[in-house]
């Protein structure tokens, strides 16, 4: 049987390769957006900046462990409802904007755990409307969910066979997942290098998957090692090719985080007034991701962050 099908040469035969601006235009205010970053790794920063430039509002945002991506969106006032398992910028500090928003009550929030968020995405990905879990039990996390914004998302239940107590979690089905990966082809087949946290379940739970890739490879390259495809292309709506698209966060195998810029961000983020200085200068003051890169770092700085072949960072 002879090979059939498009995409052999890596050309955009499926028409899925888009610009950041084209894709972000299609995100409605109020959408439930899931971000694939973890703390300061593989965050879809290019997308987040563009969402802020386009002044998106009233987003619901879900993520396992909120990082720089979510902190920026919350800081910019784009988020109305936050669903997270935790949050951190690793040793650079806490997610100041997220924490402040919780303190001032400027958004609705649900605090979960990493595994319960992952299980909720897993249920969404599998088309299950619910999934049981043994986390959360006897905690104030559960009590607050039950008494607050998560009240219709959790329910005590028992195993129909053993009677064992569980917490039933409602499936989490984001409208759009933005996933930053190292490698994709023009059909949207994605490889993720390094640990994947809840990226596979999160992306496959979403109604629309948008991939930002550091590198676009020919589909022939994907066909050489199809075991490495974590998200199959037919699930992906659009691919954005954006080198350094997670900067100043890190992308394993591509580049390290920029410690200096992260410190600068945290200095701004800890102060509610100065967050907007940062957003004005770096995000609104840059017409696109290339302009942002030019503003934040010069080629010498970016080259210094480039991953060493053997270390991957």
């Amino acid at each position, binding site marked *: *049987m*002879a*090979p*059939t*099908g*498009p*995409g052999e040469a890596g050309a955009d*035969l*499926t028409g899925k390769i888009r610009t950041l601006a084209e894709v972000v235009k299609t995100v409605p205010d109020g959408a439930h957006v899931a971000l694939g970053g973890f703390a300061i790794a593989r965050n879809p920063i290019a997308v987040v900046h563009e969402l802020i430039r386009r002044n998106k509002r009233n987003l619901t945002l879900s993520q396992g462990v909120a990082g720089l991506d979510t902190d920026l969106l919350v800081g910019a006032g784009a988020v109305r409802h936050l669903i997270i398992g935790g949050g951190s910028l690793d040793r650079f500090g806490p997610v100041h904007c997220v924490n402040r928003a919780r303190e001032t009550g400027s958004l609705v929030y649900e605090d979960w755990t990493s595994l319960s968020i992952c299980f909720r995405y897993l249920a969404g*990905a*599998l*088309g*299950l409307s619910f999934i049981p879990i043994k986390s959360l039990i006897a905690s104030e996390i559960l009590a607050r969910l039950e008494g607050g914004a998560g009240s219709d998302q959790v329910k005590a239940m028992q195993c129909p066979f053993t009677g064992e107590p569980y917490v039933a979690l409602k499936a989490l089905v984001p409208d759009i997942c933005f996933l930053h990966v190292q490698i994709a*082809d023009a*059909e949207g*087949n994605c490889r993720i290098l390094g640990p994947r946290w809840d990226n596979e379940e999160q992306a*496959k739970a979403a109604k629309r998957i948008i991939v930002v890739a550091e590198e676009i490879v020919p*589909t022939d390259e*994907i*066909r050489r090692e*199809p*075991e490495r*495809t974590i998200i*199959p*292309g*037919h*699930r992906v709506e659009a691919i954005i090719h954006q080198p350094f698209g997670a900067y100043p966060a890190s992308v394993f195998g591509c580049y390290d985080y920029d410690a200096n810029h992260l410190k600068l961000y945290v200095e701004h983020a800890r102060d509610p007034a100065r967050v907007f200085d940062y957003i004005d200068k770096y995000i609104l003051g840059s017409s696109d991701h290339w302009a942002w890169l030019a503003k934040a770092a010069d080629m010498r700085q970016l080259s210094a962050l480039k991953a060493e072949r053997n270390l991957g960072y």
Partner: protein
Amino acid sequence: MAAAGARELKDGETVVVGIGLPQVACFLAKATHAPGLTPLLEIGVANMQPKDTPVGLADSRIFYRATCWSGFLDVMGMNLHRGLVDTGFLGALEVDRFGNINTTLSRQGGKVRYFNGSAGGNDVASLAKRVIIIMRHERRKLPVAVSHLTSPGFPGGKSRAESGLRGGGPHRIITDKAVLGFDGETRTARLISVHPGTSFEEVAANTGFPLRRPDDLAETPLPSAEQLRILREEIDPKSVYLGQAI
């Protein structure tokens, strides 16, 4: 049969196929009007380019040059159970008037003979947006009621929602004599077209459940010359699957 199957597939769809004619139908569609079709195999394969002559789903020849190798959980869990598969192709030992499928056993004079069972068949029948059954047209294979309901069509003539089933259920039965669909109200199989060279009478005589002659009985279109060329030269040059039954 392959051409009739291909005709049911639209560009951009996601399709769970099996070995043999479903696979041929899918690749015929992909090579002609539906280049953006994504064929999936239940074992964990997306967008393969089969080569040589695979003997089954587990044969390395059928999953050659795929773009993703995963597992049941991805293809059947995160596509089929998630409700993202547009069309599932199934074969059958028996299909009854409600599109229920038997792949488990036959009863011959009180003696039960077992066959392969469901594998992914019940899952596809339960979960795909629409199911296309491809099979040989024999009276005993198209009974009023299946000997064993392995994979549900419209059990008891009930709606899928009433049965608690998620997918849309059977859409077409494509045989070597005719194409059948399903009546929206009675949910029983009805004739859509008979293939050139046969007739309503011949089809009805070879069907175990009653068939009405539709007012608008059509003749199944012949494959085009280009379709025949692609089938014979590219997809099945050794005529392993096609035989006479194109």
